[in-house]
């Protein structure tokens, strides 16, 4: 039986087991929306801005092991989606974006709502396609899902011109697909793994540094086994939080620009460093030259060869699927009779750093709400069991520091691109994936306004997200940098003329709360979380002068950390 390109497109999504498509209709995708209308397997979530569609699909992907799916129209539809696509690309999130395009005969004529979608998205997708023949739709979508989910995951765009979605052909969905130029790595090299085991055994000051790759590859259990088997300290990157249980004693906290003193010092002074699904980025190791001043052996395990030896020299590179590599490494370590070297002195040193750094600390107040206190209360009241999405800025760092994630896929944030406006739409995707779970969106009065319109989407689909806005009337992270590095000249970082967020939430049909007093934080949050079926917007008036510590200033080395106000 012949089907239209639009029907084929939707059928492909059904074949892929897609539950939700996040999107926004428009001229070039009318045929596809018509096909969507005439079926009920794939549910469409109508957002209020295309950027939010992509973030929602992204949040959905991050809290599950599925690819997020987006459907947008040509022109402004796809350009609005670009920020979301780049966000997913930087954090290696599996996603398939289907965009409408003007009809093939109009391409290149500056037609209404025409942009070169493939050209515009090329630097921020894993791959993209322009479908020029209706017969290619099924195989292209199959390829898109395969590429998005395999190897190092990432977003894939399929651009479908309007005439192609209206032409007809037979439908066959391929069972499997091969792309001759694409062979995602599987097992690691056994000899390299053996060498890694050898180095680990000889280490006197070992350190395990694990990133988002652990979460994406579902290797948390293997990582935990490795840390437990070896007795080594473990740190997680911002993207890796939850990959290793944060409440475990061997966890030394997050590392990097706002990492703990002990994590950063251990990174700088270890003799053997195992990097697992992490990429030594500038926010993690700071100044590369400073990092390289100390000689240490580096073992780097990653699925993407181009992540290895990109910023630091590596002694034992291992390219492969983390899960398979870690399984093999564990097997090698378990077979060995020789015990690992004594690292008691190293742990003693780490404990001293822990004490010197004083852990994560802030001075609480009974007068003004400290933002860290809000996160601590959130952690306490949710028992560490919530899905926490965040926007970008100070609140993001406090959430990362003060919420102890013991499980992967619970911490949902834009790490690589640092996209303000991510938190609320991402929370929508998470809540749809886990309808009964507690989903908290930690945000600020700056970030939330970048996608505030999604409160409307939340009402339409009855998504009972709890929004915790740390409202300090400033773009806090910008203000912090201006205070530290720009002589207190707060150029355009004060948010004047803020809306009344309580009324705003109410206008969108939700519940709004303003919380001014520290003593009200816990009761308000309790009340909010008790409202299982409602979205509650909590506007916390927090201390505008609070800064995020510790801090490794940009361009500095990991041990050049500023611990507190003693700048």
């Amino acid at each position: 039986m012949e089907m239209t390109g639009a029907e084929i497109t939707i059928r492909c999504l059904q074949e892929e087991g897609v539950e939700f498509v996040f999107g926004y209709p428009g001229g070039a995708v009318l045929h596809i929306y018509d096909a969507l209308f005439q079926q009920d397997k794939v549910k469409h979530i109508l957002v209020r801005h295309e950027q939010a569609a992509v973030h929602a699909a992204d949040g959905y992907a991050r809290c599950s092991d599925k690819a997020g799916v987006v459907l947008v129209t040509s022109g402004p539809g796809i350009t609005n989606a670009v920020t979301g696509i780049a966000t997913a690309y930087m954090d290696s999130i599996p996603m398939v974006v289907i965009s409408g395009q003007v009809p093939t005969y109009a391409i290149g004529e500056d037609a209404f709502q025409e942009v070169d979608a493939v050209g515009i998205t090329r630097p921020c997708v894993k791959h993209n396609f322009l479908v020029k023949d209706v017969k290619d739709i099924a195989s292209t979508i199959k390829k898109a899902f395969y590429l998005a989910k395999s190897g190092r995951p990432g977003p894939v765009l399929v651009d479908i011109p309007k005439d192609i979605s209206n032409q007809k052909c037979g439908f066959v969905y391929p069972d499997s697909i091969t792309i001759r130029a694409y062979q995602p790595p599987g097992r690691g090299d056994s000899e390299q793994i053996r060498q890694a085991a050898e180095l680990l055994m000889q280490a006197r000051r070992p350190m395990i540094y694990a990133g988002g790759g652990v979460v994406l590859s579902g290797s948390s259990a293997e990582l935990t086994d490795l840390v437990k088997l070896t007795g080594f300290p473990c740190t997680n990157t911002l993207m890796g939080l939850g990959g290793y249980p944060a409440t475990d004693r061997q966890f030394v906290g997050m590392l990097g620009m706002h990492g703990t003193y002990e994590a950063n010092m251990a990174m700088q002074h270890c003799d053997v460093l195992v990097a697992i699904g992490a990429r030594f980025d500038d926010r993690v190791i700071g100044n590369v030259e400073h990092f390289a001043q100390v000689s240490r052996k580096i073992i780097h395990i990653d699925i993407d060869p181009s992540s290895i030896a990109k910023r630091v020299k590596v002694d034992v590179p291992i390219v492969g699927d983390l899960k398979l590599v870690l399984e093999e490494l564990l097997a090698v370590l378990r077979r060995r009779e020789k015990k690992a070297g004594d690292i008691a002195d190293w742990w003693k040193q780490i404990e001293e750093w822990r004490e010197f750094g004083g852990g994560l600390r802030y001075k609480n107040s009974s007068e003004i709400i400290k933002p860290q206190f809000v996160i601590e209360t959130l952690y306490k009241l949710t028992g560490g069991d919530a899905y926490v999405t965040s926007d970008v800025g100070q609140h993001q760092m406090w959430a990362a520091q003060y919420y102890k994630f013991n499980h992967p896929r619970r911490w949902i944030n834009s790490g690589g691109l640092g996209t303000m406006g991510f938190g609320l739409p991402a929370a929508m995707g998470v809540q749809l994936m886990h309808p009964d779970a507690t989903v908290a969106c930690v945000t600020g009065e700056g970030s939330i306004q970048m996608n505030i319109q999604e409160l409307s989407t939340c009402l339409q689909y009855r998504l009972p997200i709890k929004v915790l806005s740390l409202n300090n009337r400033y773009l806090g992270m910008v203000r912090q940098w201006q205070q530290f590095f720009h002589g207190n000249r707060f150029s355009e970082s004060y948010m004047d003329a803020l809306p009344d967020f309580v009324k705003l939430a109410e206008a969108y049909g939700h519940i709004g709360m303003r919380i001014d007093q520290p003593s009200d934080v816990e009761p308000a949050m309790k009340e909010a979380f008790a409202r299982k079926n409602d979205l509650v917007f909590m506007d916390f008036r927090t201390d505008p002068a609070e800064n995020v510590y510790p801090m490794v200033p940009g361009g500095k080395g990991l041990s050049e950390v500023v611990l507190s106000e003693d700048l």
Partner: protein
Amino acid sequence: MRHIISLLMENEAGALSRVAGLFSARGYNIESLTVAPTEEATLSRMTIVTSGSDAVIEQITKQLNKLIDVVSVMDLSEGEHIERELMLVKTRAEGEAREELKRMTDIFRGRILDVSDHTYTIELTGSRTKLDSFIGAIGRELILETVRTGVSGIGRGNRILSL
């Protein structure tokens, strides 16, 4: 250091811009880039002349391999190889210069493809340095225009870039 990177890629619309875009986005140098389909119609062969430290060249190779349309990559300059470039030069050719240009073309094993009252059009093939020397030898004041294809490269002996 100068490197000649050779690659096979899918002969598809957009493949060239993926490679060119990669170089500009990541700040890599391109001295020259040539591309054309191979005997296998679905594949194109590209030769890129670039320069950078060993670490940069390693990243370039890895990043190229990461492109879904790139089938295989080889750094020709890592081993024995041949590089050739074709150049067309149109020169002023009047009076005594006519004879001198003819002689110079013979010495460089070039050919004169087109002759007019006042001009020669000369074809020359060779390595980049040979073509540079020819331009140096005839002198820039005689040259009206030059067209160079950029370097094409291939490994010697058993060094073969295939699927």
